[in-house]
């Protein structure tokens, strides 16, 4: 088992695929939210977990964090940092979904399309999906080899940033 995990963690193609899957998923997920922030804000309100003063800020910032981290993963700029952000978001989604699942609170997921407002998604498939994404994210995070398809080793930039 340990060997299998080590092989999976060191697999460059798996790392490449995981980065693209996560990248495309998060860019896609950000699209509708960016076009209709008011609808997304209403969905956040529907989760009934956030202080009212923060709802709009989440609706404004979250889609762009998804977009930028997704893009960074695909082009390979700061892939480890980008996947840390994405895993952080996934952990937050998993937490929020679990809380509402446990207390039986129904809500509109709003994961991919805010246009489905009013459509109640079941939390279990979303939880399973997010856990799979999280595992892919961990592979990208823990991968220590040379990553495929990164546009440049921009990590040197941090040298200039001090």
């Amino acid at each position: 088992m340990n060997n299998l995990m080590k092989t999976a963690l060191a697999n460059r193609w798996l790392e490449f695929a995981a980065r693209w899957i996560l990248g495309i998923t998060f860019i896609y997920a950000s699209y509708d939210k960016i076009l209709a922030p008011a609808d997304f804000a209403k969905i956040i309100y529907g989760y009934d977990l956030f202080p009212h003063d923060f709802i709009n800020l989440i609706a404004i910032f979250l889609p762009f964090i998804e977009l930028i981290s997704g893009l960074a993963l695909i082009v390979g700029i700061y892939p480890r940092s980008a996947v840390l952000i994405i895993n952080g978001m996934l952990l937050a989604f998993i937490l929020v979904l679990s809380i509402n699942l446990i207390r039986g609170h129904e809500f509109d997921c709003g994961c991919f399309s805010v246009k489905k407002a009013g459509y109640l998604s079941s939390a279990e498939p979303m939880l399973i999906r997010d856990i799979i994404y999280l595992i892919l994210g961990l592979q990208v995070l823990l991968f220590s080899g040379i990553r495929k398809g990164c546009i440049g080793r921009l990590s040197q930039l941090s040298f200039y940033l001090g």
Partner: protein
Amino acid sequence: MDYKKLTKEITLLLGVSVGLALIVNYFSPAGIALIGQWDTSQGVITARAKNDVFIEALEIEDVRIAKQVYDSGKALFVDARSREDYEDGHIRGAASLPVGQFDELIGTFIDQHSPDQPIVTYCSGRTCEDSHNLAQLLLDFGFNNVKVFIDGFPGWEAEGYPIE
């Protein structure tokens, strides 16, 4: 892992995201305020978007006032919810004009009602904006006396007022 480097990179990625978000939100016609109105005791909830249809002056916030308007017999109550919701129960005497089917139904509605007809739109209460959308559309089509009853069908039903 080099935590210092990671922190720097994450700060940079988040900084770019936040900056871009603020710029796009500022210029986008669909942009929203930094703080919305999410307290139902203050009225209909809204993210306060630039393209919001909320005209607070149109709102009837007190269900008893709505009942007085209803009892005067002059106003036509118009249900903005879907036809199924309307058929499940609505304010007695209300007309159905689902905002999602507005384009196909407005012709008949105009034929049946004069532009001076006082109208009160409603939907499912303070978490619903369809009644505001409908009111705006009716104003655009020349109806000049339109109000929005913001507590909608649930608020009306809870008071035990006439439904059918």
